[in-house]
Every structure is written in C-alpha cells, then in structure tokens.
C-alpha cells in the first residue's frame, strides 16, 4: 500500500493500536508523497513565498496575488502524469478538471488554462497515441467547461518515452477576498456536492507515488472518467454559493477523495470532523467504507456551511442540477471520525494524518552520467555544410515547429478576454472593465536540468519571466510543478534538491514569489528516471494593456535589434538534438543580474510604446527566433535581412547558441535613439541586426530562404506526425 515497515510501526505507536483497513488506507494516502510531500516538503521550504502582493502563498488550494482594484489572480499548476500514461484522454481531461476545481475553490472564476506537455519520440506509434489522446482530453474537457486554454508548451525527447508529463495550470480572477479551505465553526454542517461517488481511481495518490512498471497496467486504479458538463455546473453553483456568504470553507476532492479533503479542511482549522459515509450518494452498490473514503470520483467538492443555512446553499446546487448532501459536521476534538451509519468505521486524530506525516531529508549523490555528459565538446562536431538546410531542420523539429496543431483544438477565445492568442511568448488576457492585462506562460527545460539541475532550475524561472517581459508584463508570482524520478534514489534526490535551489535563487534574485505548486515524483519506467523537469507557470501584470507586444514582425521597414549578447553555448541545445541527435554538453549559463536588466529594458521599451515586436530567445537560438518572428506576425509572414556579428564564434554557435538573457525586438527606426537610451541606462548590450521586409529571410551570406518555405516546414514539423 506504499507504507514502509517503519512508517507502519509509527502508525501503531501513534494510535496505540492496530489500524483497521479504512484507517490504514487513510494513513497510506495521507502519508503518500502525493498528499504528504514527505520527500519534498523540506526542500520546498527553500522557495521564497512572500511578496507585497501575495495574499495567499502555498498551503491553500491555490496561490492568490493582488492586482489592485480589489481584484486578485489565483493560480496553480498540477500534474496528471501517471493517469495520462495509462489512459491519455481521460487522464488529461481529469487533470484539467482537478486543477480548475482548485481555482474556484478559492472563490475565483477560472479564466484560463495552460498545459505543459512532455512526450517521447513522435516516431513511435505509442507516443502519437498518448500525445494526441492527451491533447484531445485537454480540449474535450477545457472546451466544454468554457475555460480557454491559452498557452502551454510541448517538448519531445526519448527521455519521456514511457512516462509522459501532463501538467496543467489554471488561472482564476477573484473579486474580493479568497475563500478558505478550512473546516471552521464547531457544529457547522459538512456538505458533499457535485457528482456521485463510485469506485474510480481508488489508490490514485499511492499510484502517483510509485514508479510505472510492467504491473501498472494491471494494478491501475479503476480509471477516472471526467464529466466536464457536471464540472461546468459545479463551477457556477459553487461561485454562486460562495456569494451568499454562508460557505465557511470549501475544498475540492482531489487525490484521496473525501479522506484528504476532510482531513485537510479540519487540519487547517484545527478542528475535527465527524462524517457518516452511509449518506454519501453512490453510483455503485456495495461500496465499502474504505472505498467511499478513498474514491477519487471527479467533480465533487466538500463545503462547510454556516449552521442553519444549509437549505439556502442546497437550493443553489439543486437549481444547477447537482447533488448536495449533508454528510457530517465540524467537531472540536481534533479527531476525524468516520461513521458508516451506526458503526464507527475510522477514528484518527487529524494531526496524525497531517502534521505527523514523516518527512525524509535524504542524502543526494551526483549522478554518474553527469561528468561525461557535461564534458562533451560540441566543437568536435563538423559545422553544417549548408545553413539553409540546418535552419529548415531546426524549424521542422517538433520542439520548435508550430504547435498550432495543439492549440487549434483548444477553445482559446471563450470568455472573450484573449488579446494575445497562443503562439506568442505569453498569452495576454484583458481584465474586463479595467485597463489591466494579465500575461501567462509556462516554461521548463528538462534537457538543461538533466545536464545541470541547478542551472536548469534557474533557467526555468528566468525564461518564464523573460516571456512575460517580452510582452511588457511584470511577473506577479509563480506556480510550479516538479516532475522528477524516484527521490529514494540519491541521484534523483540530488537533482531535485539542486533544481529547487536553482529555482529559489532565481526567484529571490528576480523578486518573484512562489505561491503554489505541485510535486510529481516517481516518474520512471523500468527503473529509468525521466529528465528532471521543473515546470514553472508564471503570471504577469500589464498595467495598461494597450502597451503590449507580441513576437511577430508587424510589417516591412522596422529595425531588428537583439537585446543581450550571444556566447559560445551550444551545449544541451535544440541544435545539437535536431541535427546530431545529441542531448549533451553544458547548458547555457545564467547571470541573473544581467537577466533582470535585459527584461527591464524590454519591458520599459514596450511600455514607452517603442516596439513593434518582442520575442524571447530560447530553443534554437537567434536565427530560429528570427524565423519565428518572420512567421508569426499579426499581418502575415514577413521577410527580413540581417547581419549577425560572430565575434570569434563559429557560425553555428552564433546562429543557434541558446545563450540566455536575450530578446529579439523590432521597432520603427525613429524609436532607436530612445531604445538606445534605455539600454544604456540599464547597461544592456544590444546590436542592430537588420531590417524587416521582403519575402525572404536572409542571414549574412549563409541563409536565404523564401518565407513561404520556412512557413511550410515550420507548420508541418509537428503536424506531419499526427
């Protein structure tokens, strides 16, 4: 059941007796990594979580950050990796459902989702099956509930072959104060609302805390099926119920079902709870107390309601066609008491399930692969004979190619707030009735993190912030999902710790608090861990949405400028992978001070209205960014002619190095002096590369390609596999 002998002994000691089956099940899920964070908790303490705008940091269902005018953004990211590996459509769909519930549990209306995906090689039929199933599942659920999926990322590497990653972030807009996930007020009734309970996903939490193996197919929990229709009703009903002021506490039922929700709610309030599971509306006959307590049936919430106001609240749910049943009440003795009618089915002090979760501080060890991988010298590889071909190969890589195949399946416009659509560095949403905009992105590079976990962690944060800067936004805070292997392996633990330290360093240096997140460990197949993959979801604010930028060139005649400077850094690059099949070398370095200055320069230029476009440089480096800016302009494809100073670098390095802290911008020539002044004041190096215009992309005398051809290759790169 996932408990060690020592843990079991500890349970005996705490209880002073043998637990029964239901109690043991409750301990097993609450003490799992998924719910209890027993390996990651001490490490998560390294994150800075405070900030002047933070209204709610980690610890509630989602983080909350003030955006002025009595409004706040609520956001969190969560993984659904293992369920998606077993049943991609439903796994991903229920992943969306789960994270959306976390957001409206805070009282916020969900306004956007983003998805961060990692899959194996698309040449494998299984990858195509999993990937297309996951995208369809996100679309199927997200579209139906009317929450636009406005961004995300997708990255393909053999490392994720057996264990894909499906992380979904949801963002909500809150008017007024956040709701609480606490079971406050002794005597208050506890209501279970939403869908009926079945045998779905029993053991999901423990399942998520194990490696996937041969036996997983067989031992998989009854697969959870999402019902987006009911979720949509649940969103409306819960938000309406919260408006009454009678809902004291609210919490979604996620992993470990009623058990974790009830226990966490009581835990937060320091109260106890008494519930009678014979009252739980069931979908299937003959369910045992154990099954009812651990069922992960979707689309359910637990509410604590002011005593005497139950009927008013229930009426709202009934109007929306949903069950709402009183299943218990809040008690003061700090004990979780579960009745099955008149029989006591479980009795455990809440504290044992929350505060007494064992935590492990483990010894890390530098993995053996690392030294050799970092020592790889790409200078030993030949230069490409033909740079046209090299660029086309990069644009055709599924990691760089247009991801339109994905987001065209997502309704990214519902709610009529999406001002910058998917396909730019960050999505931008307007906040109706104000001049504000919200910029949303998620990022993380598992390959870098594999090659240098500390740097990979830092870059995940820096790159997300850079994406926001490239549309003119100031980061408000971040959420993260830490996707790693089995932390009981010293090498994996070391990766985890290094990555978190790197992320924390970047957060402190850039002044971005961590307000929520999620940990997904045990991502391995047949003993091989995935690339350690921290994913960062970030939300930024644009005080005046009229002053924003997107990544594509607007039209002919603009000057193209690179903010930042290029170093000799092809290690871990997409270039090495797409052209040589190598995932080796040292990833690019990151100087956080420089990063902050470059971002500030870009943001300032956008806010002063100087720029026609801005595009953060990442996978594929400078020339790929140029091609992308040519292809994604709001007025259709646009040519460009540039000269790239090589300053002693080999040409492939000058073109495709993934040096950090660079942003490619374009602007009318008359704005150049003001840009120069901003760059000068902030000490940001920049170079004028050339101009937009014409029907070709021309780089020095090495590349000359019709934009049409670039477009064809780039548009087909991912779609051709599907």
């Amino acid at each position: 059941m996932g408990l060690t002998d020592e843990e079991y002994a500890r349970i005996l000691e705490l209880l002073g007796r043998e637990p029964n089956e239901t109690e043991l099940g409750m301990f097993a899920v609450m003490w799992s990594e998924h719910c209890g964070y027993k390996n990651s908790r001490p490490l998560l303490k390294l994150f800075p979580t405070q900030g002047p705008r933070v209204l709610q940091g980690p610890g509630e269902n989602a983080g909350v950050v003030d955006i002025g005018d009595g409004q706040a953004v609520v956001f969190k990211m969560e993984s659904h990796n293992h369920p998606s590996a077993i049943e991609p459509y439903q796994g991903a769909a229920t992943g969306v459902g789960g994270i959306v519930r976390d957001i409206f549990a805070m009282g916020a209306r969900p306004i956007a989702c983003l998805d961060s995906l990692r899959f194996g090689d698309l040449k494998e039929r299984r990858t195509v099956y999993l990937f297309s199933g996951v995208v369809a599942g996100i679309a199927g659920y997200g579209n139906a509930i009317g929450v636009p999926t406005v961004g995300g990322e997708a990255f393909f590497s053999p490392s994720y072959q057996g264990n894909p990653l499906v992380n979904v972030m949801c963002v909500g807009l809150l008017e007024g104060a956040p709701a609480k996930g606490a079971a406050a007020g002794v005597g208050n009734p506890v209501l279970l609302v939403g869908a009926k309970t079945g045998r779905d996903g029993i053991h999901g939490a423990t399942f998520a805390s194990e490696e996937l193996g041969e036996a997983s197919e067989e031992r998989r929990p009854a697969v959870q099926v999402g019902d987006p229709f009911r979720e949509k009703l649940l969103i409306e009903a819960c938000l309406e119920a919260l408006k009454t002021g009678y809902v004291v506490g609210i919490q979604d039922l996620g992993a470990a079902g009623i058990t974790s929700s009830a226990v966490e709610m009581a835990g937060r309030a320091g109260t106890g709870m008494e519930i009678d599971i014979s009252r739980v509306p069931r979908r299937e006959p003959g369910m045992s107390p154990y099954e009812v307590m651990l069922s992960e049936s979707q689309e359910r919430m637990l509410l604590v309601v002011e005593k005497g106001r139950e009927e008013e609240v229930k009426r709202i749910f009934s109007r929306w066609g949903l069950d709402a049943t009183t299943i218990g009440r809040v008690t003061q003795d700090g004990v979780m008491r579960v009745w099955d009618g008149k029989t006591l089915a479980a009795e455990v002090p809440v504290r044992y399930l929350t505060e007494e979760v064992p935590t492990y501080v483990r010894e890390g060890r530098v993995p053996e692969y690392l030294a050799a991988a970092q020592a790889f010298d790409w200078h030993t590889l030949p230069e490409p004979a033909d740079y046209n071909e090299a660029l086309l190969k990069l644009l055709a890589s599924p990691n760089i190619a247009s991801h339109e195949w994905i987001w065209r399946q997502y309704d990214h416009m519902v709610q009529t707030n999406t001002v910058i659509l998917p396909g730019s560095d960050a999505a931008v949403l307007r906040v109706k009735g104000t001049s504000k905009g919200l910029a949303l992105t998620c990022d993380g590079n598992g390959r870098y993190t594999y090659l240098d976990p500390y740097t990979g962690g830092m870059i995940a944060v820096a790159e997300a912030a850079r994406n926001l800067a490239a549309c003119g936004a100031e980061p408000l805070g971040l959420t993260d999902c830490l996707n790693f292997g089995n932390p009981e392996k010293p090498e994996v633990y070391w990766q985890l710790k290094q990555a978190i330290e790197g992320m924390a360093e970047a957060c402190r240096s850039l002044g971005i608090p961590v307000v929520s997140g999620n940990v997904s460990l045990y991502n391995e197949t047949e003993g091989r861990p995935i690339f350690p993959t921290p994913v960062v979801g970030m939300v930024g604010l644009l005080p005046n949405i009229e002053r924003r930028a997107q990544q594509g060139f607007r039209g002919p005649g603009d000057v193209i400028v690179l903010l930042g400077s290029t170093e000799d850094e092809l290690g871990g690059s997409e270039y090495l992978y797409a052209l040589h099949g190598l995932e080796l070398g040292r990833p690019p370095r990151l100087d956080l001070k420089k990063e902050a200055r470059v971002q500030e320069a870009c943001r300032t230029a956008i806010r002063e209205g100087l720029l026609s476009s801005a595009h953060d440089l990442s996978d594929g480096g400078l020339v790929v960014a140029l091609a992308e800016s040519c292809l994604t302009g709001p007025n259709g494809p646009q040519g460009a002619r540039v000269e790239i100073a090589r300053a002693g670098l080999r040409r492939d390095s000058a073109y495709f190095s993934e040096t950090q802290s660079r942003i490619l911008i374009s602007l009318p020539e008359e704005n150049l002096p003001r840009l120069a002044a901003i760059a000068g004041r902030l000490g940001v190096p920049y170079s004028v590369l050339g101009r937009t215009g014409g029907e070709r992309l021309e780089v020095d005398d090495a590349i000359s390609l019709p934009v049409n051809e670039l477009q064809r290759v780039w548009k087909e790169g991912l779609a051709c596999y599907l």
Partner: protein
Amino acid sequence: MYLVKVYVTLKKGILDPQGVTIRGALEALDYKNVREVRTGKYMELELDAPTAEAAREEAAEMARRLLANPVIEDYRLEVEEARA
C-alpha cells in the same frame, strides 16, 4: 465480403456521464421508468476475408488495437455474410 458489427461499451464501474445525462433527459420528458442508460459505440465494417472466422479474427485484432480502448472499454463482434 463480410459485414462485421462491432459493439463497444464501457467497462463495468467506469463512469458514463453521457448515459447519466440521457437518463436525466428521458426523465424530464416524462419517461419515469428508465432505470439506467448506458452508452457505447457501434460500428459496421465491410471486410474482405476468405472466411467468416478470418473476418472475425481480423476484426477482433482491429478492435483491440484501435476501435476499442481496452483500458476502459469492452467490445463484442458479430459477423454476417454480406453481398459484395
């Protein structure tokens, strides 16, 4: 030529939101004596095969690989002779 009818249904215990919703709709239309509705898929394949047995075998393979999702669905086949 054979006509293979493929019935795909959800496994026992797997939630069928569509069935639940259709049942509710029928109830609203005043059909009060519908206890349960379960939904599935139905497919007809026209198949060239030497014998009915061969057609069944091939269709079963297709069902396992593509037509049904073995994680959550069961399938059943019927084979009929069809005029070409």
